[in-house]
């Protein structure tokens, strides 16, 4: 079970109840645990607020005395610097606010990919570590030990250097048709924009919803009849089939922008920048090692007797994992994995070292140009706080889903 978090409202009700009780039993309310709890919390909260106000006030006075501008007016001013890569249009004539937004989006972009890839890598390696296959489990332990014992800064710099050491565009590696790996990043083809694509995106979402419904239906049917309906291929069919139909209905546009070497660089297609790839690989490989350890510990936390009992009733190894081990392991896995997601997100700020324009990078430039360190830093802190809290809230919600009742 999750430890119940004592909300304020709860504490207050508890306190009222204690007052009531103390009146009845004639013992002093000062001895009531609940009452004392509320008093301490009120004192602590007031102390924190007072301290915060004092610090702010003090800084404000000092800065004013030195003639340094304070306040957040700079946000609307012209930024005057350009940003290497951006998910939204940006040029140097736009405001600091917009620049910071570009940084926030870049942070979210690399963190989102990082979380997904680190989870896939970590779960795979974690299960591999407990594999009975000697080679597989040794390879996985090798990965874990090599990666988690090196500071994440080195990972990021290492992978960025690896990419810079790749051949220049003229001698690009060409693993697949149209895909080029160079010291300028990974360049790949992109379909030329067409009105049908947003609709295909919508069809994809509808397809995913359809596949979920189908899986539910299959589960119910299995309960009713005992027949196992395979869900993987039909589900994949629904997810991919709908966009395909839309594409065909839209006249099957086939125009691609394929990268081609022009002079010293590629034209056409699109690219993942070396900074993005270096940062992504660095934080993914590092965090993946920690997640692998968490997954291994989770699986091993399930007593061996559980596996034996499940095998003794004739369950196949895959079903033992899915029906007996993982449900019990998840509650051990989820909370520490949340911390890993949080540290991955915060570690993405190391992008500043290799020139990836994440929030810290853009915020730092803003700080240097405006000289308003406190404001710039507090914006960055507030944004990270918000991202982290969102991850925590989502993961707590997920944890409540998988946290199992036992008594």
């Amino acid at each position, binding site marked *: 079970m999750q430890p119940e978090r004592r909300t304020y409202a709860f504490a207050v009700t508890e306190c009222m109840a204690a007052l009531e009780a103390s009146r009845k039993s004639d013992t002093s309310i000062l001895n009531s645990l609940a009452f004392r709890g509320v008093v301490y919390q009120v004192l602590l909260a007031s102390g924190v607020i007072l301290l915060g106000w004092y610090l702010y006030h003090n800084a404000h006075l000092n800065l004013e005395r030195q003639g340094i501008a304070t306040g957040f007016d700079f946000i609307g001013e012209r930024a005057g610097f350009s940003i290497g890569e951006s998910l939204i249009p940006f040029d140097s004539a736009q405001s600091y606010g917009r620049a910071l937004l570009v940084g926030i989006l870049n942070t979210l972009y690399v963190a989102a990919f990082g979380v997904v890839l680190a989870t896939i890598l970590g779960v795979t390696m974690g299960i591999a570590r407990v594999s009975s296959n000697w080679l597989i489990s040794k390879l996985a332990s090798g990965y874990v030990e090599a990666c988690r014992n090196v500071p994440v800064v080195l990972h990021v710099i290492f992978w960025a250097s690896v990419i810079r050491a790749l051949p220049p565009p003229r001698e690009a590696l060409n693993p697949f048709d149209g895909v080029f790996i160079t010291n300028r990043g990974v360049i790949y083809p992109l379909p030329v924009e067409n009105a049908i694509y947003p609709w295909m995106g919508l069809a994809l979402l509808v397809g995913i919803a359809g596949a979920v419904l189908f899986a539910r239906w299959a589960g119910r049917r299995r309960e009713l009849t005992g027949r196992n309906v395979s869900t993987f291929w039909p589900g994949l069919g629904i997810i991919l089939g709908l966009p395909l139909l839309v594409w065909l209905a839209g006249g099957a546009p086939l125009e691609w922008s394929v990268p081609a070497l022009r002079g010293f660089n590629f034209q056409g297609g699109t690219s993942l920048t070396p900074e993005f790839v270096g940062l992504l690989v660095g934080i993914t490989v590092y965090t993946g090692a920690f997640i692998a350890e968490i997954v291994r510990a989770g699986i091993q936390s399930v*007593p061996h*007797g559980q596996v*034996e*009992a499940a095998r003794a009733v*004739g369950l196949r190894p895959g079903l033992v994992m899915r*029906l007996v081990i993982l449900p019990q392991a998840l509650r051990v896995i989820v909370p520490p994995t949340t911390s890993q997601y949080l540290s991955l997100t915060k570690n993405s700020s190391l992008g500043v070292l290799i020139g990836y324009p994440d929030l810290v990078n853009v915020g730092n430039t803003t700080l240097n140009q405006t000289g308003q360190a406190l404001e710039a830093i507090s914006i960055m802190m507030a944004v990270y706080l918000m991202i982290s809290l969102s991850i925590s809230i989502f993961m707590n919600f997920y944890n409540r889903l998988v946290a199992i*009742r*036992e*008594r």
Partner: protein
Amino acid sequence: MTRQSAARKPETTEAVIRLSDVNKWYGEFQALKDINLTIKRGERVVVCGPSGSGKSTMIRCINRLEEHQRGTIVVDGIELTDNLKNIEAIRSEVGMVFQSFNLFPHLRVIDNLTLAPMWVRKMPKKEAETLAMEYLERVRIPEQAYKFPGQLSGGQQQRVAIARALCMQPKIMLFDEPTSALDPEMIKEVLDVMIELAESGMTMIVVTHEMGFAKTVADTMVFMDAGEIVEVAPPSIFFEAPKSDRTKLFLSQILTH
């Protein structure tokens, strides 16, 4: 599907389990030495012996929770080899009850019982639940069906474990010291269930030190020591006139305290 697919030999209408020259090592240590034992359909066998004598190891070999290295084990006409299909076929015919219950703590009692019938036997949920309730009646705790194992007493948990094994409608039941982890007042409720099961004609192999139970239920007593079967005899002879000195010593120790 599991019932028919595995190859079956015709001569086994009588002997349902046959261990021939079974040897097992844990590394250097030999846990089983030339074990020979034949068990007939409907036979009730009680295995006893000092701690570390290999009792658990032997019965765990019968459903392949442990692997033997030499000799053959044939269960219900199927020889135990590396063949995963055969192993699963045997496991679904052989129920096992552990000393430490090993109920699935994340599933309610009823879901503990229906898990294998649904996923191994492919039984519809409704049908599996009806079956589960039937067996919960038999072990006399139908009212606990919707609780979690952690909410039950040890005796109740062990009876759920017995019902869980019975839900697969096995031909053979293995018990590894089913009452050793229980408080004295709960031992009887579990033994009563086992006596009833024995009376219904189930083939049973029970590792236990409950000699009263052995005397009422056993057709055959097996005494093991240091990885060997020392003596096999009906209880009347086993308790009154054991042949081996080791058996005599063991019995004098266990019956006097």
